[in-house]
Structures are given as C-alpha cells and as structure tokens.
C-alpha cells in the first residue's frame, strides 16, 4: 500500500465516520460540527485527486461561510429533541428507500466499466494550474450555464430576502444620510441673554 492509499483511506474513514456522526448525533450543534469535519476530509480527498481549486473552494465556501451561518441558526434554535424524534418509525421506510436508491445509483455509476478508468487522477506537470484551467473552461465553453446558474442564485437570494422582509411601523431605525447631513444650526440654538443680578434666582 503506497502513501497515497494510506492518506486516501484515512480521509475516507474520517469522512464516513463524520457522516454517520451527522445522522446519529443527538445534539444538533454536534451534528453540524460533524458535517464540517466531513467537508474537511472530503476536501482532503479532492486534494489527493489534484483538484486543488475545488478542494479549497469547498473549505472556503461550505466550511467558512455556509456552515458558519448554519451553526449560527442551529445554536439559536430552541430544539425539542422529543418532538424531533416523533414519527421517526413512520418515516423510516421512506428514508430507507431513498438511502437504498442512492447506494444503488452510486454502485451503478462508480462500479461500471466506463467510469472505472477515469477514477484515477490525471498526472500533470508541477506548474499546471487547475484553477486557471477551470476558469478558462467556465468563462468560455460553459459561460451560459455558468451565468444562468449565477442569475438563478441571485433570484433565490432576492426572493429569500423579499419573503422575510417585514416593514413594521414605528421602527426606530436611524437614517445615516440624515445624520451626516446635520448642520450645527439644525441642532443648536444660541440664545443671547443678559446676565442676571445676583440673588434673583430662587
């Protein structure tokens, strides 16, 4: 077994254990952290395949941004475990069916003869830049799918914001532009008055 294999099996084992952890962890925060671990080790496997751009982007986007917001939400939720577990057995057959289907599909795809040859990383020279190659493809050959995907994401984002935005009345929010525009004369009134003789105040 070469060093490459050792590293692969190490990452693969961690990924599988972490993924099981996501499902079985009782605490939702622990489950989210297990998912982070699974992402990190999956990125390691991609790195082994010399897909450094994808590996680093997986860490950057999923671990660094998506899961942070996920954790953020999960931590603030008041989750009732008993309520969550209700109906587990009722939905179990359905879940098991989907899981079985996915396992079958993966065996079908990965085990077939056509895909057996491409599962090995293509060797490249040391100065080969995966990132540059990917960028070139995305912005030339796949520019329309790429742009369409970007617009769909944008629409989803705008829709999510529009759905959750409430215009409540009586909110005391500050208008920064008005604050900056304020002049001395708007706030301050200088009153000239004569000094009063001593003893006149009561």
């Amino acid at each position, binding site marked *: 077994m070469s060093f490459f294999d050792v590293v692969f099996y190490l990452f693969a084992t961690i990924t599988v254990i972490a993924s099981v952890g996501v499902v079985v962890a009782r605490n939702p*925060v622990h489950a989210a*952290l297990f998912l*982070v671990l699974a992402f990190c080790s999956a990125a390691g496997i991609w790195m082994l395949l010399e897909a*450094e*751009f994808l590996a*680093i*982007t997986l*860490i*950057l986007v999923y*671990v*660094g*941004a998506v899961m*942070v*917001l996920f*954790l*953020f939400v999960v*931590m*603030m939720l008041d989750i009732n475990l008993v309520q969550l577990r209700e109906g587990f057995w009722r939905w179990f057959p359905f879940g098991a069916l989907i899981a079985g289907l996915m396992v079958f599909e993966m065996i079908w795809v990965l085990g077939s003869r056509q895909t057996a040859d491409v599962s090995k990383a293509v060797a490249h020279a040391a*100065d080969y*830049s*995966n*990132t540059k190659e990917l960028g070139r493809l995305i912005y030339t050959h796949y520019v329309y799918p790429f742009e369409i995907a970007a617009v769909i994401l944008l629409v989803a984002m705008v829709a999510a914001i529009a759905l959750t935005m409430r215009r409540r009345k009586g909110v005391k929010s*500050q208008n*920064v532009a008005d604050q900056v525009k304020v002049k001395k004369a708007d706030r301050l009134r200088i009153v000239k008055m004569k000094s009063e003789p001593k003893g006149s105040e009561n």
Partner: protein
Amino acid sequence: MMEWLQPIQNLLGPAWLPIWTAVKIMLIVGPLMGGVAYLTLAERKVIGWMQVRIGPNRVGYFGLLQPLADGLKLFMKEIIIPSGSNKLLFVFAPVITLMTALAAWAVVPFNAELVLSNANAGLLYILAMTSVGVYGVIIAGWASNSKYAFLGCLRSAAQIVSYEIAMGFALVTVLMAAQSLNLGDIVKGQHGNYGMLNWYIIPLFPMFIVYLISGVAETNRAPFDVAEGESEIVAGFHVEYSGMAFALFFLGEYANMILIGFLTSIMFLGGWLSPVPFLPDSIVWLFAKVAFVLFLFLWFRATFPRYRYDQLMRLGWKVFIPVSLIWVVVVGAWMQTSYWLW
C-alpha cells in the same frame, strides 16, 4: 544553497523530507511566536506613549522581559472548565483558533526562494484558512454555556463572515492585476524599474484601504472588537477561559494580526521589493513593511472608539462590498486599455 546539508540528507534517506519540512515549520513558527510575544509588548508600549504613559518598564530593561513574565503567569494559572459546558469543545476551541492562524503561514513567501510551500493556489488557501478561524470563536462561545460568551460569538461570526466578502473581492483585484494566485508571483508582478510606483497600492488604492480595514475587523481588533466589547458583554467569547486556554486565543489573535501584516505587505506593498530602485531587494523591506502595518493596527486601537454593531455591519455591507465590486469592474476595464502600466 544548501550544500552543507547534503551529508545529513544522505544519512536520513527517505525520512529526510518530513524531517526537513518539520524543521522549516519550526523555523517559521518559532520566530512567529517570538514576534507575537513582542507584539504584545510593542502594543502596550505604543499605546502607552500615545496616551502619555510609560507602559511596562519594570520587568527587565525597558520592560523587555514583560512578555516572558506574562507568559509564565498564564502558564501557571489554573484552567477552569465551567460546569455545564461542553468540555471537549471547550478545550478544542482555542486549539482551532491557533491552528488555523498558524496553518495559513505555509504559503507565505519571505523572499523569492524562502517559502515553505510554493503553492499555485496560495491566495485561495490563505482565504480558506482565515475563514475557518471563525470556528474557534463560535465553538468557544457556544461551548462555554454562558450568555456573554454566546453573544460575543454570534457578533463575531456575523462580523467575520461579512467582512470576508469585501476582503475576498479586494484579493480578487490583486489576483487580476498579478494574473496569479501564487503569492510569490504576486510580489514578482510588482517588480519594475520605478520602485514603489510599481506596487499594487497605486492602482488598487481603494482596495488597499478596504483590505486593511477588513483585516482589522477580521482579527477582531479595536475599533471592530465588538466580539469582546468589555463594556457591553464583559469579554465576549473568551470570558470563561483562563490560563493557557486563554493564552492560545491571544496567540491566535496576534498571529493573525502578523499574518494580515504580511499579506498586506505582499499584496499591496511589494513584499520584499525595495521601495526605491537604487537599493537592493531584501527580506528586511518585508519586515519593515509588516512592522509599519502592525503599527497601524496599534495606532487604530489607541485612536478610535469602538464601532456600534449596526454601524459596523453597515460599513461592511453597504460601503465596502459595493466599493470593492465596483473596483473589480474598474480594474477589469482598466486592464483592457493601454493605460494599465502594472
């Protein structure tokens, strides 16, 4: 240049590479930790002088042994693990903070040859590592089982995620200008006949400002230190930490500051390149630039009052992100014209 190491290499055989890499890692981490220790002293001295105080001057000559005394004190203190906390994660959080702060150093070049890993996607790697650093804060805040720590961690997470976007776009302009993700190549792209006029700070000046301020926000330094705003939430996410566990957060924060200093110098200030054409390029320039950026960090802390949280978010989302988006387009268009001289 390493001929004298040849006999040792022959002696060790296949074990040479891991051992030599470990030695190189030690050569980076050792001085870095020393730098962190003396940055704390420099911070106290500089802020002291700015506030017309003397600063630490009791331990050693000019207070030079103060960091050692502080370290010893923290080392001797008991680590208290709060009851009801999540013990494993509580201990793990400072480790994550320091680990990510150190891991990013793997791709930082010190001069044209001196770099641990000359990775092609170095810039992406740095972005990824600094973005993982937020987990230390989040896990610390959650595992402490304390409302102040939790509020601090929520503030910090939102802040770091927000400023990361502007920071990422600032780096996008740099990699557009350099046409490379390799930090060494980015510095080489700033090489030219006109010294500091060739640096990317000239065409990318707005991005330099955005990156520097986002860097201050990313490292949770004043005036963006709402994560540990003492006057509002005691000390934020690390309020429950003591002794060495607390010290690890401190080390991570200062190592990140030095990292931001190095990255700013490498990407906008020409790295190890000399500012004037008649002086040779040297690693000394890099250290001088880093020292200048770190001085800015200390200067900010001594000068500005803490941002209010909504102002901080407004600055990140409504000022920095639009400015950096526009500048990406401007740089892209500019590079297509003949007026692009870099």
